[in-house]
C-alpha cells in the first residue's frame, strides 16, 4: 500500500539514535543506532522483547527525553521538547482526577496561549467525546469510569489537539481482550479519518499486525532494529483477518523473531546476575 500520498500527517525521521542511561553499573545503552523513517500518514507498529527500548524510542520521539546521539526530525524539523501536535497516548490513561471528562478533553486547547472561547471549546470537545463513544459522560468524574472508558477519554484528550503524529505506548496493554478489540477498531477508524502518522509500541503481535502498515521488530538490549515487516493484509481488517493464512504466516514469522530476542534478553540478564554476584564476593 502506498501510504505516502494519502497522508495529512507528517513524516518522522529517526536517524542513528542512541540513548545511553548512566546506571550504578556503568553506562547502559537502551537504544543503539536506531534509524527508522515513517512516511506521512503511515501506521508503524514496534514490537520486541520487554526492556528492548521501545518505550524509550517513543519517549524520544515525543520529546520527553533527549537522545544521547543521533537526531529525530518531524516534518524536517529537529524536535525540541513535547509538542501538542505530536500527541502521546500512554499505557496508563494518566487523566487528571480533579477534572471531569469534559475538563480532561478540553485540557490541551486550554493550555494554548490563546485559548478558544468556552463555547467553541465545548462544541469541539463534544465532537471528540462522541467520536470515542462517550457522549453523555461529559460531566462524569474520572474515577467513575471503567478502564476502557478512561482510555477513550485519554484518546479524545489527545485527538482534540489535532495531532499530526500520534505516538502510542502500549495504549491498550492494560485492557481486557474485548475492550482492547473495540479500542483497536476505534483507533483504526480514527486513523483512517484523520490520517495522522502513527507510531505504535506494543508487545502484542496480533495487535501490531492488525493495525499497522509496517511492523518493526526490535532486538534485545541494546535496542536495535532487527527487521521490518510490510503488513500488506487488506483493509478493513477485523476479526476475520485474524484467521486468514496470510495473517498466520506473518504472525509466525514475527513471533519467531521476537522469541529469539527474548531468549537473548534472558541469557543477557542471567549473565548480568552472575557478573553481579561475582562483584559481591
Amino acid at each position, binding site marked *: 500500500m502506498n501510504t505516502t500520498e494519502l497522508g495529512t500527517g507528517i513524516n518522522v525521521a529517526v536517524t542513528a539514535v542512541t540513548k545511553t542511561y548512566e546506571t550504578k553499573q556503568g553506562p547502559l545503552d537502551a537504544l543503539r543506532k536506531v534509524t527508522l523513517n515513517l512516511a506521512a500518514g503511515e501506521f508503524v507498529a514496534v514490537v520486541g522483547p520487554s526492556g528492548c527500548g521501545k518505550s524509550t524510542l517513543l519517549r524520544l520521539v*515525543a*520529546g*520527553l527525553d533527549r537522545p544521547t546521539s543521533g537526531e529525530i526530525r518531524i516534518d524536517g524539523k529537529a524536535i525540541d*521538547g*513535547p*509538542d*501538542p501536535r*505530536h*500527541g*502521546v497516548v*500512554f499505557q*496508563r*490513561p*494518566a*487523566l*487528571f*482526577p*480533579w477534572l471531569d471528562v469534559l475538563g480532561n478533553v478540553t*485540557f*490541551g486547547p*486550554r*493550555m*494554548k496561549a490563546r485559548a478558544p472561547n468556552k463555547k467553541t471549546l465545548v462544541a469541539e470537545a463534544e465532537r471528540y467525546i462522541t467520536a470515542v463513544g462517550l457522549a453523555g459522560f461529559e460531566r462524569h*468524574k*474520572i*474515577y467513575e469510569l471503567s478502564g476502557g472508558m*478512561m482510555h477513550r477519554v*485519554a484518546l479524545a*484528550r*489527545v485527538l482534540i*489537539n489535532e495531532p499530526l503524529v500520534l505516538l502510542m505506548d502500549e495504549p491498550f496493554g492494560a485492557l481486557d481482550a474485548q475492550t482492547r478489540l473495540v479500542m483497536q477498531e476505534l483507533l483504526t477508524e480514527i486513523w483512517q479519518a484523520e490520517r495522522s502518522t502513527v507510531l505504535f509500541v506494543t508487545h502484542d503481535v496480533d495487535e501490531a499486525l492488525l493495525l499497522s502498515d509496517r511492523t518493526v521488530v526490535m532486538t534485545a538490549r541494546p535496542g536495535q532494529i532487527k527487521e521490518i515487516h510490510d503488513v500488506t493484509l487488506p483493509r478493513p481488517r477485523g476479526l476475520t483477518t485474524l484467521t486468514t493464512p496470510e495473517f498466520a504466516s506473518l504472525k509466525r514469522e514475527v513471533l519467531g523473531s521476537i522469541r529469539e530476542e527474548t531468549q537473548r534478553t534472558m541469557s543477557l540478564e542471567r549473565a548480568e546476575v552472575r557478573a553481579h554476584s561475582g562483584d559481591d564476593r
Partner: protein
Amino acid sequence: MRSGASYEHDYELRDKRWLDGRAGTPVLMLRSRRGRLGRKLIHAVVFAPVTYSLLSLLGLWWLVAAVHITSTDILPAPALVAERAVELTHSPYGSETLFGHALTSIVRVTAGFASGCVAGIAVGILMRYVYAIRYFADPILAFLRPVPAFAFVTVLITWFGLGELPKVMLIFLAVFSLTTVFTAAAMEALPPQMQDAARTLGATGWRLFWFVQVPAALPDVLVGMRLTLALAWTAVMGAELVAADSGLGWMVWNAVRFGQTEVVFVAVVGIAVIGALMDLLLVLLTQALTGNWRTHMRSS
C-alpha cells in the same frame, strides 16, 4: 460457631454503618428512612459516632468526679465546669468574659495560622523550584523546626514588645517551619505519567504549575494544614504565657496560679471545642476542593 472470615465481613458492614453516621439497629435505620427530614436529621445527630464518643468521654469524666477518687480541686465535675462556664459568659474573668478571651485567642491563632500557611506554602513552592532557595532555606529550617515554639516566647517579647505582634509571630513560626516541609513534599506528589501527559498536551511554564502541579499537591497540603492548625493552638498557649492578660491560654495559666481548677477546665474545653470546629472547617474545605478524587491520584 463463626468462621473468622464471616466475622470480618460482619465487622466491615457494621463499620460502614458507623461511618454513615447511622449506627444503630437495622430497625432504627428502617424507621428513619420512612421518617421526614427533621426526624432524619435528629436521627443522624443522635446516632452519629461523634455523639457516642463524646458522650462516653463526658460520662467517664462525670463518673470519675462523682466517685471522688480525686478532690474537686484536681478534677471538678462536669456540672461544676458547665456552671462556671455559663457564669463566665456574662461576668468577666480578669479583663474579659469567656467570649472575649475566646475571640482574642481565635484572632491570634487565625492570624498566625493564616500568615504561616501563606508564607510556608510560598517558601515550600520556591524550595521545590529554585535550588538556590532550597540550599539556603533547608539548613535554617532544619535547625528551626525541632525547637518548640515555647522556646521563642521570651526572645520574641524582648524583640517585639508586649503587643499582639510577638504572640502572632510565635504561632506564625510554629506553623511556617512545618508548612515549608510538607508543601515542598506535596509538590513532588504529581505522578510522573501525569506530568508527561500534561507536557505532551501542551502545558508549559505557569500553566503546567497552576493547572497540574497545584491541584495535584492540594490534598497533601490540606492534610498538612490540619496538623499545623493543631500546632497553632499549642503555640497560642505559649504566646499567652508571658506578658498577656487575655486569651484562653492566659485563662489556663492564670487559673492554675490561683488554683481555680474549674476555670482551667472551662478554658481547656473552650480550646478543644474551637479547635475542633476550625478543624471541621478545614475538613469541609478539603471535601469541597478535593472531594472524592484525592484517593485516585495513583489509579488514574
